[in-house]
């Protein structure tokens, strides 16, 4: 019976991650951290570096699953992919001048890490960064509503009942929040 479990689990994990299932994400996140932490700590990094690097890599994997850039055959392939991305990113950090020049410091390295996205030069990546920042600072009611709907995939009627509102007005509110976000993104473009 355990074997059937395992097979089912392999198939489900990718779908669950793509659907932002919090439990699947959390388990995948927690079960792979220690390997990457060990990689960073053994190679002149700190625990803070490990956390940042890991989260960057985790998001990259998640994004590539969503956009179907990467379609793993099984969980081992998925875990290997995550490790490989983290390793490549960390090698880039180690090779960077920012890291070599300033040895004991932490901040510059962290800033470098944050910038070191594979597609940094891509216009789309720049645009995405603007959106991330805008959404991060969006007012709480709108941010919550958009997170519930677009990230947690809660149906409108569920959100409506939680807010004790009519579904139609939540729907309208959601649109207005999107417009608000869009206008912030638009006005903050360089």
């Amino acid at each position, binding site marked *: 019976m*355990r074997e059937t*479990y395992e097979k*089912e*689990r392999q198939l*489900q*994990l990718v779908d*669950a991650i793509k659907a*932002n*299932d*919090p*439990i*699947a*994400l*959390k*388990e995948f*996140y*927690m*079960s792979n*951290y220690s390997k990457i*932490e*060990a990689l960073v*700590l*053994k190679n002149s990094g700190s*625990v803070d570096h490990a*956390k940042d690097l890991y*989260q960057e890599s*985790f*998001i990259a994997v*998640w*994004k590539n699953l*969503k956009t179907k850039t990467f379609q793993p055959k099984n969980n081992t392939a998925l875990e290997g992919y995550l490790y490989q991305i983290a390793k490549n990113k960390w090698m880039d950090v180690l090779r960077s001048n920012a890291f070599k020049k300033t040895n004991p410091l932490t901040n510059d390295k962290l800033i470098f890490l944050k910038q070191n996205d594979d597609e940094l030069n891509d216009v*789309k990546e720049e*645009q*995405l960064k603007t*959106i*991330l920042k*805008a*959404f*991060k600072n969006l007012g709480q009611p709108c941010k919550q509503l*958009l*997170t519930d709907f*677009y*990230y*947690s995939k*809660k149906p409108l009627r569920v959100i409506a009942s939680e807010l004790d509102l009519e579904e139609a007005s939540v*729907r*309208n509110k959601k*649109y207005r929040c*999107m417009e608000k*976000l*869009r206008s912030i*993104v*638009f006005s903050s473009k360089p």
Partner: protein
Amino acid sequence: METNSNNISQEQLEAIERYINNTMAAEEQYAFEARLSSDADFKIQFEDAKTLLLGIETQSLKEQLDKFHDDIPTRKTPYTKSPKIRYLQLRRFVAAAMIIIVAGSFWFFNQDTNEKLYTKYFVPDPGLPTTMSSSTNFEFYDAMVNYKQGDYTKAIQKWNALPAKNDTINYFIGVAHLANNNEHLAISYLEKVSSEPESYFKNDANYYLGLANLKEGDIEKAKLNFALSDNENSKALLSVLNK
């Protein structure tokens, strides 16, 4: 309203959402795709909306990862580069190793046979699969993640905080206590499960109950428990205990 090309109506936004989520009827989808390939402005609007949605999800995920991270147990011994053992130190190292081996085998051979049997057989239940979670059970499965990571104390704490206790929760709290070497507490939870005639976990609960009693040194009780469970390990243990 301003009239930049970025503006998008509620209907358009919802159509894009339906398209991305694959919930469009075939006919609408066909029309949508036709417009995407013929109308350049619409294509730009579509791509922008898609990036906006990806941005919302990415930032939400980022914020969630920080919360996940709080549950990662901190490494107790900091990772330090192990200094190379120098020759002179090697001798000391060997001497120390000898002492450890001698003391260890002394301890091992004098270990209580019950304890030995227990260590041979005890493996915590692998837990329930956590990829099919329904949002209503979030807290339960959240604790299951900690359980599977071997953080039994945190798992127990979270399960104990749940308002309603059923046999599934009692079973896992019991096994977690046992894994944490609290056989006494384990017994009280597992007994609740074993006394429920309909429980799916009854079989396994009796097995772990037997192991807990074995560890406590109560062989007679352990035998009774193993007799009530029909899994292979129970049978094997029972035959060893009856020798």
